[in-house]
Structures are given as C-alpha cells and as structure tokens.
C-alpha cells in the first residue's frame, strides 16, 4: 500500500495492518470496508494501536479515528482486567512452592510486550507442573475460582483428554481462568515435553516474584504456533497470526547477538519440542501474509524440518488464505466457511485418535442438533443493562 488507493478499489486488511501509512488517503467507502473487516476479525484494536504507533491519529478523519479510539478503550479495559486477575492468581499460587507460568495474552500484557498492545483477551491462561495441578486447583478454589458449569461429558473430555482443567470462573469477578499442565492435549499427535518449557521459562519483567514466570521467547512463539495450527481451528485466526508477527518481530529484531542467537536456535528448539510442523506454518504464513521479517535461512531450515509432504502445503495455503482473510465486501469469499470447517476437523484430527474423534464430533453434532444452550456465556452487568432495554 505504498501508492494511494483509488476510492473505488477494495481495501486490504493485511496491507492496512502491515503498513498503516497510506490509511489517511482512504475514502469513506474504503473505511466502511476496513472498519467492518477489523470488526469481523477482531483486529480493530490492533490496527488502532499500529495507527497510533505510526503517529497517524491526527491525519485520520475524526469520525473514523473515533472507532479506533473506542476499540482502544476496550483493549485498555482488557489489559486492566487481566492485570488484576493475574495479580489475584499470583496471590493465590505465587507462594505454593512450584512454578507458575502465565501463557499467551496474560503474559504479553504482564510483560508489556508489543503482542499485548491492542489485543483483546478473554481468559487468563496459566501453566503449573502436572504433579501440582491438584494442589493448584484446591488453592484456586479457596481463593474463589470454581469450575464452570459443564455437563458430565465435557468434564470428562477436559480431564481425560485435554491438557488443562475444565475452565474455572471466579465467583465474584466472573473472570475465566484456564489452568494447563502442558501446552497441547495429551491425546494429540504432538507431545512437547512440559519439563523443557518449565526449565527454560524466564521471569516476567516488572513482576518481582521468583516462581512467577513466562515462557522463553522461542517457546512463547512455538506455543502460539501450536495453539493456532494444531489446537485451534483458525477461528480467531488473524488475532493469533498477529500475535506471532509481534512476537517474531520483538524477538528477532536488530542485528545484535541476542537476535542472532534467537534465529539460530528457533528451528532446533521447535524440533526439540516436537513442534517443528506448526513452526513451519507459523513462519510461512506470517512472512507470507504479514511480511514478518524472517531470515531466508530460517525459512529454508524450517521447510526442511517441518514442511509436510505434497500436496498438504498447497492445500494448507489455500485453506489458510481463506480462513485468515475474509472478503472485504458484503458477500463471503468463496469457500471461507468450507475452509474453516475443514480446518476445524483437521484440528481435532491432530488432537485425538480417529475413533475418539468420530465419537467426539458425533456427540458435538448431536448436541448442536438438540440446541443445548451455551451455559458458558457470561454476561457482564452492562451487557445485562443492554438486554434489559430490549423492546421485544
């Protein structure tokens, strides 16, 4: 987006995120498209952050800027809430005598990394050693976190097959807390050794507590990649891809020894943790879609270790392009929902043995058919205010 766009030309979300410098020349209809696209992909706050970091606030139409300011207010609220929840988790578990690792959004916010700016965060994720997870559950329970209402099947699904406790919710504050003991489901094909993650974990800048940590930079990227390409179905895809972009840029920036060492060790660390395949996808799609500056040597090395056999890479390229970037116009881009569905099935395929998968998807489909209410939805006081004002 180095040349100004014609007013009728469709606007590209990824170009806008990569380089906001030409945004001031967008026309009204182009902004209509872009604001909607960012809403749909939950990336407006990130765009807002990048616009302000580029010093462009004053150059935008004030009415357009207002939408960005509104999304910044929400992102700030999320930061505030997550920081306080984390503070309470540290109060409950910090002195338990084992490591407490903050994962994903909470870690980005607590350490004030760029990935945490303009990011919406719904839950706090933590990891404790598997041998201590029962103790952690008890301590958290005493501090007010209780399991969310789940039916017996869901309870069993989490405890038996997943890598976490069923989600907890604080009685008073309603914040959701996910307690993990590793970063991928134990039933899955890839099994990164959590002991290696704990061993490499580092202190969180600004939090002065010896047992409170976050993953090392390379591990943080591998976790994010595993989550996006192995665990999830790319539904919140663009947000996670933007995380990876920010994380890679932060760890790999500059020509100093530190960033050199990071790039040299990233692929081998991926192999060591059994995560070279998701790392391959992460490097491929961030550099391809978000122009993340990954050295060519690292891309080549990750292709050698992590690239699947033909024709899988080609199919993944097709699926991912459609799943990450929705169409700018009213209509849906061809195949976007099909692509998302295929990725959903794929993510489960990677997570469970085939028979278990068939059973699980069967159960889920039955339940959707029976229209079981989503009991996990939490409404804030203000959402209830809105509900109360409904007319019909």
């Amino acid at each position: 987006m180095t040349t100004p766009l014609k007013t009728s030309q469709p606007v590209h979300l990824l170009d806008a995120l990569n380089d906001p410098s030409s945004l001031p020349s967008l026309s009204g209809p182009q902004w209509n498209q872009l604001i909607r696209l960012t809403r749909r992909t939950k990336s407006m706050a990130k765009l807002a952050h990048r616009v302000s970091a580029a010093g462009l606030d004053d150059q935008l139409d004030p009415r357009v800027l207002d939408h960005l300011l509104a999304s910044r207010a929400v992102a700030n609220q999320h930061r505030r809430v997550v920081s306080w929840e984390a503070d309470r988790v540290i109060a409950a578990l910090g002195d338990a005598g084992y490591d407490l690792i903050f994962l994903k959004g909470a870690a980005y916010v607590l350490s004030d990394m760029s990935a945490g700016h303009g990011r919406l965060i719904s839950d706090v994720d933590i990891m404790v050693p598997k041998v201590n997870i029962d103790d952690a559950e008890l301590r958290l329970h005493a501090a007010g976190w209780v399991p969310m209402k789940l039916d017996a099947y869901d309870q069993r699904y989490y405890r038996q097959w997943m890598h976490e406790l069923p989600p907890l919710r604080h009685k008073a504050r309603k914040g959701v807390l996910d307690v993990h003991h590793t970063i991928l489901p134990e039933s899955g094909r890839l099994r990164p050794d959590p002991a290696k993650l704990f061993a490499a974990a580092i202190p969180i800048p600004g939090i002065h507590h010896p047992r409170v940590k976050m993953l090392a930079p390379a591990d943080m990227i591998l976790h994010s990649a595993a989550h996006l390409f192995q665990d999830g179905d790319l539904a919140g895809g663009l947000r996670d891809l933007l995380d990876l972009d920010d994380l890679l840029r932060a760890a790999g920036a500059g020509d100093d020894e530190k960033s050199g060492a990071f790039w040299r060790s990233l692929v081998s660390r991926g192999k060591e943790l059994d995560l070279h395949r998701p790392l391959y996808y992460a490097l491929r799609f961030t550099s391809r879609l978000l122009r993340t500056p990954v050295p060519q040597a690292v891309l080549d090395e990750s292709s050698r270790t992590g690239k699947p056999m033909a024709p899988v890479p080609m199919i993944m390229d097709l699926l991912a392009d459609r799943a990450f970037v929705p169409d700018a116009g009213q209509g849906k881009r061809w195949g976007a929902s099909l692509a998302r569905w295929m990725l959903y099935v794929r993510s489960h395929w990677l997570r469970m043995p085939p028979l278990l998968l068939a059973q699980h998807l069967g159960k889920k489909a039955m339940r959707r058919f029976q229209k079981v209410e989503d009991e996990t939805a939490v409404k804030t006081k203000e959402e209830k205010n809105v509900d109360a004002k409904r007319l019909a």
Partner: protein
Amino acid sequence: MYIHELSNTDVARLLRGPGVRARMGPFVFGMKTSLSQLVDPIHLLYANYPLEPEEDFIDFEVAVSPRSWRERWLSRNASFIIDGEVPSFPSFERSLALPMFEWAVNWCVFTRPHQYLILHSAVVERNGHAVILPGQPGAGKSTLCAGLSLRGWRLLSDEVCVMRPPCIDLIPVPRPIGLKEESINVIRAFEPGVVMGPATPGTRKGTVAHIQVDAKSVAAGQVSAKPRLIVFPSYRAGVGLSLEPISKAQTLLRIAQDAFNFSVLGAQGFDNLAALVDASDCFALTYSSMDQAIEKLNELIELEPTQPKNEMTHHNNSGPRANAEVMA
C-alpha cells in the same frame, strides 16, 4: 435534501439498496431493510433528517431483513444485520420489525462508541441548560421527556446521556422517542398534534410507538449542552407533585449502576461521572400531572445553581484541555 423531501418510492429504493443515511448527533447511520412495511414508518420518523451523501463514511449500518431463505419464505421472521454481521440475537416476527429496527439502532449506540461515556437516561435542554432524566424502565422518563420536547425543550436523547471524557458537555443523539402502553395515549391527549409512528402491539414491553424527532432537535444535533439538573422522575397516579433533593453520592451510584460502559472506561469514567454529578443539582421528582412536572422543571432550570459550582465545573467552561489537566 431532507428525507421528507424524498418520495416514498425513493425511500423504498434507498432502504433496499445503498441505505437511507442519517446523522444522529455524532453518528451517521445507514438504514436498510427489504421489508416494505418499514418504508412508511422510517419515512415518517426520520422525515426531518437531512440525507447524508453516499460517498461518506458511515458509523453503523443497521438492517432488519430476513437473512435466509428459511426466514424469507417459511418462518416469515426477520433478523438484525449490523455492519454486515448478524449479532447473536434470535430472529423475530415481522410484525415487530419497527420496534426491533429502532432497538437495533439503539443497540449500536449502547454497545460500541466507547470513546464516549454512555449513561442510560433521557436528556433535554432549554436555554442552554440540560436536564438529565435517568430512571429505571417504567419510571416515566420517556413520557416526561416526550412531554418536555413537545413544550419547547430540545431533545438530546430519550435513551442515552453521552459525554466525551474528560469533558462533561452533553452530546445529543436525537432519535425517535419510544413510548409504551398507556404513555402513548397520555402523550396523544397531552399534545393532539404529536407526530407518531404506528403503534406495534405484542412486544416484550407491550404496545410500543415512536414520536417523530422535531426539526429543531435534529438541526441542533451537533450542539452540546451544559448539564444543570439530574432529576429522577417517577410517575405515580393521583399524587401531588413533590421534589426532593438527593445527595450527590447517591446520585452517582444510581447512575453508575445503570450506565452502559462505565467499566470499560475505568477511572476515567468514574472521574467524568463525578464531575457531571458535581456540576448538577440532583432531585427526585414524583408527579401525576405532566403539566405540573413541566412547569416545575421550567422553573428549576431558570434558577441559579443552589450551591457554588466547584473547581472542576468552572474549568469545564474553558474547554476540554483545561478540564483534562484538572482530571490528571
């Protein structure tokens, strides 16, 4: 070009196509529908708004339409489609389309523009001074607000009190006033010349009807007003008028309880609400006669403030920047 200058056919064509674009205070809405039953009511209720140009940025696009062949041909229902997406609300019978359309427009104001602090109350203004009328549903805030606006007060909103922190000037979002049940007849009797859309029975709140926004309130849609009074109205049949002062602390808590985005704005929201309450005299008004209630408010709004305005309010007069420094 005002919407009342358009022919019915033009309005229908716009609603089906690019949308009828109207500026309601700070927001430009694009209104769309494929339901022909909505053409007349929208034409009537929004008659006094100028039509905004097509090439402009619009803040929110609100459509009420069937969203699938099933809704179009089988269930004969309709859904909201806001900015091209269907929020997670159930679809509804088409007979409810008008109140649902109005609610969908309000929903955008309730849930999105967090650059503002948004409280749940009606706001009207006279001679530059505004009265904020908060109140639980059923307390009669919309009825009193309608009465005042039919007696020369300017309507800022019957649903939202909007401020841009750190400033406490009240920002109008003029929209049709929604009345329900007996209020509809009360207002028709109070002002036989009132322009009202069709009444829709069978909503969750009973029968609902909307009052056309007057030209004066639409025209002043970009002009903010200074807060002067916060009055909690409460209609009670057969009682005489009474006006009781309420403490500022209690007022603040009651308003915060009912706000739309108080927690999104955090400390900034609290400071702004505190500054608003500081700058206003606060009362509970119980009445059974609308004329008496309006007379009382006409009287109150002309009085000097009952207590000296404090620092913060004083600084407000010198604009947002001065106020920001006080807040900081």
